């Protein structure tokens, strides 16, 4: 694993044709393996819902029936008529897309509850956060921007100086952390993951 990872890493930085070809082949193999994993995932979905239906899992088994029927129908109909057929397109635009929109719209309500929680000043740090939030809110909201233009420069300063400085520090730290984690995996020292399959005495 380490050798293959190292080869892919070196290929990213170099222009050696033989290495480029090898990594291209490895990528194709990874795609094929991922496809097999997708089939396993599909099998797992069926197994999970079959278990729910068989055990009459409280309040879930009828949802499992709907899921299994929809999944089976979409697979069989997609194979028969193609994914651009009218029925398949209808399922996408009038079922899936609408469900996505509903799911996304919930986020708005969650943002309000989270913002409310952020604005409760329980400690000195939370009070500072509250002040910064009010300033940024006043500097960004259309109504306050129109009537209180003095907040805009303070808002800009907050976003471009302390916020950007903290953000960049975290980004650099996370970048170096990612590199170290990568090397830990490459050297085979990430034991919580790589211990899988090890023999125990």
């Amino acid at each position, binding site marked *: 694993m380490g050798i293959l990872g190292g080869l892919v*890493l070196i290929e*990213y*930085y*170099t*222009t*050696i044709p033989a290495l480029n070809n090898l990594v291209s082949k490895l990528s194709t193999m*990874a795609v094929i*393996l*991922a496809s097999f*994993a*997708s089939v*396993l*995932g599909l099998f*797992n*979905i069926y197994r*999970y819902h079959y*278990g729910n239906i068989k055990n009459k899992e409280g*309040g*879930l088994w009828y949802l499992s029936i709907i899921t299994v029927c929809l999944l089976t129908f979409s697979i069989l109909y997609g194979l028969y008529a193609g994914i651009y057929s009218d029925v398949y397109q209808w399922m996408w635009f009038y079922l899936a897309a609408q*469900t*996505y929109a509903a*799911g*996304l719209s*919930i*986020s708005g309500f*969650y*943002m309000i*509850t*989270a913002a409310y*929680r*952020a604005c409760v000043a329980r400690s000195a740090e939370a009070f500072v956060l509250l002040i910064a939030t009010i300033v940024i809110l006043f500097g960004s909201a259309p109504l306050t921007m129109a009537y209180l233009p003095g907040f805009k420069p303070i808002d800009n300063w907050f976003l471009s100086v302390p916020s950007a400085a903290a953000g960049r*520090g*975290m*980004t*650099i*730290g*996370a970048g*170096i*952390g*990612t*590199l*170290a*984690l*990568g*090397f*830990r*995996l490459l*050297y085979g*020292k*990430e*034991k*919580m*993951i790589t*211990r*899988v*399959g*090890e023999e*125990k005495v």
Partner: protein
Amino acid sequence: MLQPTRIAEFAIMIITGIVCAYALIIVKRKDKPFGDMRPIVPMLHLEEAIGRAVEQGRPVCFTHSSGTLYTTGAPGVAAALSILGKISESCAKYDAPMRVFCKGPLTFQVSVDVVREAFRTAGYPERYKDEYVHFGSFDYFAWYNSVMAYMIKYKPGSSFLFGEFAGAGLPMSETGARVAAMQIGGNHVFFALSCDYFTIGEELYASGAYCSEDPEMISIIAAEDIVKILSLILMLIGIIAGYGGFSDFIINALMG
């Protein structure tokens, strides 16, 4: 031979690799050559969260974000898998029912192996059940709605959210807060609002090493700190060069 636009990245990568290798060699020769690692507070409360779920008779919920093992979110997912190993060991020890929600099929297969192995390592392989690791969906919305639906229906006593979260981080952590689950998360800005404990920046990537208490893994965290000090020195040189007006000279010297 080297990609001309990636020389600086390559140099940083090589330096980090050498420093990590040096740390691994040093740790074999001396006992605790870099001292003790500072505690990562959220990791100190993993067992407490699982214990709370057990006391309440509620399950433990874990998700490693929408990232996969072959996209840009891979480091976060790898770190989350490492933490999953530790959480699974504790769940095995306390016989806590758990549910791991996976988005990618590859993540699912790796999670199954990590959880099964953790149960075996803890000495309770018979306590592992197939339904503990669940393939939510490859679709982003379906996956995060399935996690939220599970939280609402089964009201987990503790919820762990680790990985590279995007928009789903807020709805998931808010749902956990709504069902009064003890939540530990990382890395998403909104976790500061909804979670009881959360990791910041590189803490997530160091958490696996911290949980393992393995000297070799911890030595690479020390190597990470050495690279950070080198980066700070580089930044200071850059600032001095920028204010001193000789930054062009350094750039020309480095780029040839």
